[in-house]
C-alpha cells in the first residue's frame, strides 16, 4: 500500500506541503486546514512534519461509531465520509500520531486522503523529504541506497567531470 513518507532529516520547513494541502482543501470546502503539518520549535530548533500514515491497523476506523471512516479500495487511503461523520472526535482520540483533526467550520473529521492517489504535497516537496510509495518498497530502497537517500538520481548523464 502506498503512503506519504516523511524523511524528517531532509525537511527544511519551507511549508510548501502545508500550503498546497491548504489550497487542495480549499478547492473542496471552506475549511482550509491542511492535513500535513510542519511545526518549527524555535526553542529546541526542531522541525517536525507529520501526516497520516494510513496504518494497516487504522484505529481511527475502528473507533468511529458512525462508520464514517473507511479505506478507499483504490488508493488504500483511510478516508472520511463527511456526510456520515457526526464530529464526535473519537477518531481524533484513537489516532496514535495526532493526524486526524476536526474541520473548524464544518465540524467533521478530516485527514489525508492521498489526493486520490497523486498527493500534491509530494509534488511540491523540493527537498525530496516527502515520498509517495509502498512503505516496504521505501524501506528497501532506503536500505539499499548508497547514502541512505531516497532522493532521485537525476545527475545529468551527459555531464562529465575532469577534476
Amino acid at each position, binding site marked *: 500500500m502506498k503512503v506519504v513518507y516523511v524523511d524528517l*532529516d*531532509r525537511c*527544511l*520547513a*519551507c*511549508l*510548501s506541503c502545508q*500550503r*498546497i494541502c*491548504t*489550497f487542495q482543501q*480549499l478547492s473542496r470546502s471552506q475549511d*482550509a486546514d491542511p492535513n500535513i503539518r510542519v511545526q*518549527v*520549535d*524555535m*526553542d529546541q*530548533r*526542531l*522541525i517536525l512534519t507529520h501526516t497520516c500514515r494510513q496504518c494497516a491497523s487504522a484505529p481511527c476506523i475502528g473507533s468511529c461509531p458512525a462508520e464514517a471512516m473507511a479505506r478507499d479500495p483504490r488508493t488504500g487511503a483511510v478516508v472520511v465520509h463527511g456526510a456520515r461523520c457526526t464530529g464526535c472526535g473519537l477518531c481524533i482520540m484513537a489516532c496514535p500520531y495526532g493526524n486526524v483533526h476536526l474541520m473548524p467550520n464544518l465540524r467533521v473529521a478530516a485527514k489525508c486522503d492521498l489526493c486520490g492517489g497523486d498527493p500534491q504535497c*509530494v*509534488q*511540491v*516537496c*523540493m*527537498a*525530496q*523529504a516527502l515520498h509517495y510509495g509502498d512503505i516496504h518498497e521505501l524501506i528497501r530502497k532506503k536500505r539499499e541506497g548508497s*547514502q*541512505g*537517500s531516497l*532522493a*532521485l538520481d*537525476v*545527475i*545529468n548523464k*551527459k*555531464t*562529465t*567531470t*575532469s*577534476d
Partner: protein
Amino acid sequence: MFTAGNHAGGEHHGLQAVTKLSMEIKPAIENGTIATLCRMCDTRCSINVHIRKGVLREITPGQINPVNAGRMCPRGKAAIDVFYHPDRILTPLKRRGDGSFMPISRDQALAEITRKIQFLRAKYGARSLAAWKGEGVGFFQQEAYVRRFVRGLGSPNYFSNDSVCFSSRYLGNLLVTGFWSPFPNFARARLILLLGTNPPVCHPPFMRSFADAREKGARLVVIDPRLNPIGCRADIFAQPQPGTDGALLWGLIRALIRAGEYDRAFVEQYTVGFAEAAAYAERFTPEYVEQASGIYASVVRAIARLLMENRPEISVYAGAGLEHYENGVNSIRTLVILATLCGTVDSPCGLYWPENPPLADLALAREEPLLPKQPIGAGRYPVLYDLARECHTMTAMDYMEGKGDYPLKGLLITAANPVITNPNTRRVAAALAKLDLLVVNDLFMTRTARLAHYILPAATFLERTELHLNLEYQRLYLTRPAARIDGVGTEYELWRDLAQRLGFAGEYFPWPDEPAVCRHMLAPTDISFQELEAHPEGVVYAPLRYRKYKRQPLPTPSGRVEFYSTYLKEHGLPALPEYIPPRFRYGADDDYPLMLTTGGRMTLLYQSRHQNIPRFRLIHPRAEVEIHPDNARELGIVNGDLVRVVSATGELELAAKVVHKAELLKGTVEIYHGWEEWPANLLTPDTLTDPISGFPLLKSIPVRVEKVSGDQAAQC
C-alpha cells in the same frame, strides 16, 4: 479579503469595468500537455501545463530537468491563477485628464506613443528617453530586447531591477575572479556556508542539494540576523548585527592565514594582492569581530575550524542579504576571497567558472559602450556601468526631477514596479509623475502602472517562445507558448512594433517573430531549434569542466584572482575590500532606536509579484512588521496591533507580528518589501549607497515603532 489595509484594493479608478473584458484564449493545443519552464520566479523549473478542452487546467512538475528533479513549488502551480486572473489588463489603456483610464486600440496606443517619443527626441535629444526592465519578464532574451530598443532609439539609458538586486553580487564576484559564479553544487560539499539568504523560500531547489550533502555528513553554517527554519538544521547558526558580515569574513580570512590553512599553491600561482590582504586582515582578531558584528569570538574560531577541516570541499553562498548596505560589494568581495583561500575556485562545489554557449550577441554587449552619451549614473558609479552596462535607477530620479546633467522626459517600463521596489518610494512616484511620457507594460494595474500615460497589456511567460540559459548545469532550453490571448502582445511584439514605427526595426528587430529570434541566437551554436523543441528538459551545450584556470587566464585585468584591485584603485575606490562598519554602528539615534531590515522573502510571494492571487492572499493576508518580544513589551505592543513605523524618510502603518525571541536579533524589525498596499520602501532612503554598485541601504535603517491601536484584523 483584499480590504485588510489602509490602501484597500478598491481604488482602481474605475478600472474594473475596463479590464473585465472577456479573454479570447487561443490554446496551443485543445487537449494534451505543454512542457515548458516556470517563470513564477527566476529558478525556471520544468513544468507540464495540462490543457483539457482548450482550458489550462493544471501544472505538474517536469520529471527530467536536473534543476527541479521532478518536483516544483506552489508558486509555480499558481501560474494558471495568474494567466486567468480577472484583473489582468487585456487592452491598451490611455490616461484621461482626471486620472481615469480609457481603453484604446493597440494601433492608436502605439501610434500616440511613437509620436510622443519622436517629439521628445526632437526637442530634448534621444537620451531624454529610457527603458526600464523589471524582474517580471526575466533576463537574458527578454532583457536583450530592451537593450536593443534603447540602442536603436539612440539613448544610452537602459535601467533594470538589477540596480537594487543582484548587481552587487555580480560586481563582487567579477572584481575578484572575473566571472559570475552561478549557484554552487552544494550536494558535493562537506561544508556549506550561507550568509543572508533563506533558500527554502527563495531558492527551493537548493533544499535537495543541502539534504543530499547533509546525508553524506556535510556541515552547515548559517549567518543571518534572522533565524529561519533552515537555521534549525545548522551546525552553527550565528546572528550578526545587520551589515557586519564583512568583519566576520575578514576574521575568518585572518584565521586561515595565521594557521597556514589555505591553498598556498593556488595563492602563489593564481592570485594577486595576497600580502596586502593578509596585512589588512591582521586587525580582525576574533575579539574585534565580536565587537564589530556581535558574533562571539568563540563562534568565529569554530567557523574557522570548520573551514580548515573541510577545505576545499566548501560551498559558500550569499543572498541579497549582503547587498543592501554601503559596504555590500566589498563584503561579497571578501567572501569570494575567503572562498578562494579555501581553494574552491572553479571546483565542483565551489566558485564554478561557467562556460557560455556561443550564442549570437542579442543584447549587443560586444558593441561599443555608450559612455560618450553619458548614461545616467555612469559618472557616479562608473564600475556599475563598466561591468554591468546599465544605468543607475536611483540617479534616474534626479534626472526626472530636472536635477541631472540633462532632462529625462520619457520612460518605457516593462514588468517593473519601482513605485514599490525602489527605495524612497514617495520620491519615485513623484519623479515618475513628472515625466512627459510614461508607458507601462504589465499584467496588472500596479502602483507604477497607475502613474502611466499609457498602459499596455503584457503576456505571461506561458505565452512566449524564448531561450533560457542555465549556467549551473550549462543547459539551453527553449520554451513554447501554452496559449495566446487575443490582443495581448509578447515583449518581442511590443519592442519590434514600436521600433518599426520609429524606423529602426530593420536594423534592430528584423525577425518576424520570436521563433525567428531564437533561430538567430542559436545560429553560431551546434544546437538547433528543433533539437531544443524536442527536449523541453534542456540540452547540455558543454560538459562541466573544472579548474580551467590551469589552461587559460582568469578574466580579470591581471588574469588572476584579485585580492587587490588596481582597477578599483584607478577609479578612486579602495583596492582592497576594506570593511566599513555600517553607519548605525557609529552611535544610536534616540529618535530611531530600532533597526529596520527589508527584503526578507515570504513563502508564495516573489518580490512584488503574486500578492493578488486570492489563495495566496489567504495565507499572507496583510503586511506585518516583525518585532522581537522584548522590544514589543517595552512598546506595549502585542501581536496584531496596528503600529506606525517611522524613519527619517517616511512612515508606514501596518500590523505588528511579535516573533519568537530567537527569530530576530533584539533591536531589529523586519518588513517584507513587495506589498502594494504597504510599501516598505516608504521608509528606505535612496541617498545612502554602496560607492561601487550604487546599491541602496535597505537592511539597516534606523526607525522607531509606535503603537496606533489594537488588532485590526480582529476588528474587521
